[in-house]
């Protein structure tokens, strides 16, 4: 039996505002419990929510970036349920009139481009956190997060594999960071998703019953949770059972999903317009204002990197993964004024490796764009070989000196003087008559021996191409 997987994602992006969506309390992460939960966040009697302008602008910015319709009028609704981390007994969200409607995004998986529909994106408030460690049989509640603005981005059920789901989520992650509307920190929960997963027999036009996996906060977990869930559902159906519509939790330690509670039907939340909030009107003026702040988006930047710098699809994709990396790369190219591909290799190679090892972001790189460019210029003009450049780079990473200063100080300048190289070759040939005879008798492999000796004699400073040519000429003479 062939099965088809159907996935829709609901991504929650915490908007990078300073204050909460309906109150003037701070949203900073990691504060002492409940020190950033004001009367409005606590839902104390008599308080009124007032909408944060910046949260609205960020939602509009996202909508424009995915080519969506921005609703001229949208409405906040109460989603009613009881849970201790939701002190009001309802979450302020949007229901039938969300701020952003019908956009789309393209993803590339295994070379194939696919368009994923985005049904809607709406504004809502985050809940607090429940701490289930044992407080004498009680649960501890921290409401600092309550009221943090969220943009919930709902996709169409267009995704057909865990791989596609991850590609979509990564693309969305890059986009919200480009737009600077979300810091994208998944460990802190700033970007997380729920996955609606179902399976159906290939060729069926109707969707199967879906299960919703809650709160996936890493790309790896999204992939593993979906793969597990798909297997579970297929086994269940093939064994004569049926999938129940329910909420499931992914346990990353056991690598399995398990039932949380039967999913309440949508109308159990008894949504109704929040009488504390008036309809949100978004006019052409605001939209125009926000549109003017849109940066170059990842797809456009990738396209430009391919055409302006003659980079491969892969290079362009890696270098545009974040705005900061792309900016760094362009600064290097500008400053070096040389081969854009050489710059790409170094940014993606030695620099990225050094950043990874030191666990640093590109913005905190110990070698800045100008200094890296200085090094690349010396490779381009043959002052040093690529091999020695790696050594210079390591020194640059440890200290603040420029490439030129290090090359000068350590005498690493490449030997390009033919007569100097020839003199060294002559000496090596004289010192190794045995190997020379064998080589001339047809043992070609010994060529490497002579290269090695010459490099040793010059401490690796002989220009490799030049050395090869001269050596060949003299040995074969």
């Amino acid at each position, binding site marked *: 039996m062939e099965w088809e997987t159907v996935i829709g994602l609901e991504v929650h992006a915490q908007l990078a*505002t*300073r*204050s909460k969506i309906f*109150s*003037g*309390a*701070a949203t900073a992460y990691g504060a*002492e*419990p*409940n*020190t*950033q*939960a*004001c*009367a409005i966040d*606590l839902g*104390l009697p008599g308080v009124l929510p*007032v*909408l*944060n*302008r*910046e*949260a*609205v602008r960020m939602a509009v910015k996202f909508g424009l970036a995915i080519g969506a319709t921005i609703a001229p*009028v949208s*409405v*906040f609704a109460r989603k*009613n349920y*009881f*849970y*201790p981390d939701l002190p009001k007994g309802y979450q302020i969200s949007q229901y039938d*009139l969300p701020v952003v409607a019908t956009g789309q995004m393209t993803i590339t998986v295994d070379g194939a481009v696919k368009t994923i529909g985005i049904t809607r994106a709406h504004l809502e408030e985050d809940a607090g956190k*429940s*701490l*289930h460690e044992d*407080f004498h*049989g*009680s*649960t*501890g*509640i*921290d*409401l600092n997060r309550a009221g943090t603005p969220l943009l919930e981005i709902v996709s169409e059920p267009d995704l057909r594999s865990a791989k596609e789901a991850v590609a979509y989520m990564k693309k969305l992650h890059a986009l919200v960071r480009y737009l600077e509307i979300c810091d994208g920190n998944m460990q802190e929960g700033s970007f997380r998703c729920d996955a609606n997963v179902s399976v159906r027999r290939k060729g069926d036009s109707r969707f199967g019953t879906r299960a919703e996996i809650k709160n996936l906060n890493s790309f790896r977990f999204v992939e593993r949770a979906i793969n597990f869930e798909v297997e579970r559902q297929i086994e269940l159906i093939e064994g004569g059972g049926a999938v129940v519509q329910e909420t499931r*939790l992914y346990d990353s330690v056991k690598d399995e999903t398990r039932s*949380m*509670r039967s999913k309440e039907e949508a109308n*159990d939340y*008894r949504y109704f*317009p929040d*009488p504390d*909030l*008036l*309809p*949100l*009107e978004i006019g052409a003026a605001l939209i125009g204002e926000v549109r003017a702040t849109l940066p170059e988006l990842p797809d456009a930047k990738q396209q430009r990197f391919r055409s302006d710098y003659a980079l491969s699809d892969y290079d362009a994709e890696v270098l545009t993964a974040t705005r900061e990396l792309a900016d760094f790369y362009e600064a290097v190219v500008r400053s070096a004024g040389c081969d854009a591909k050489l710059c790409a290799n170094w940014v993606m190679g030695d620099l990225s490796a050094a950043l990874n090892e030191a666990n640093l972001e590109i913005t905190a790189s110990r070698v800045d764009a100008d200094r890296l460019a200085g090094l690349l210029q010396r490779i381009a003009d043959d002052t040093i070989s690529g091999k020695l450049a790696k050594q210079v780079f390591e020194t640059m990473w440890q200290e603040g000196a420029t490439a030129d200063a290090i090359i000068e100080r350590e005498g690493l300048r490449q030997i390009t003087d033919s007569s100097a190289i020839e003199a060294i070759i002559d000496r090596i040939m004289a010192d190794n008559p045995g190997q020379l005879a064998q080589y001339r008798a047809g043992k070609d492999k010994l060529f490497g021996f002579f290269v090695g000796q010459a490099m040793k004699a010059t401490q690796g400073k002989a220009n490799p191409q030049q050395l090869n040519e001269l050596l060949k000429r003299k040995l074969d003479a």
Partner: protein
Amino acid sequence: MSLDSEAVKRIAWLARLSIDDDRVADYARDLSGILDFVEQMNAVDTGSAMPLAHPLDQSQRLRPDEVVESDQRERFQQQAPAVEAGLYLVPKVIE
């Protein structure tokens, strides 16, 4: 439209209201009466009218994104039945 006892109990549970069993029939009758009244209004053709989200003919005011609240945890927590380590304590939540 009429509500039966089961529907009344379910609604009460969703709203976490405790109701006496011997009042359920009364609630069902009263609530059904309200729904009938709504049903009468449904008869009016409103096809050309925008749904009303709020009785005031105004739109939402927006506030600047500024932190204006200070930490008042100590005062708020004086109202709470149980707190520890800065947390509000509630009966154990099991998922």
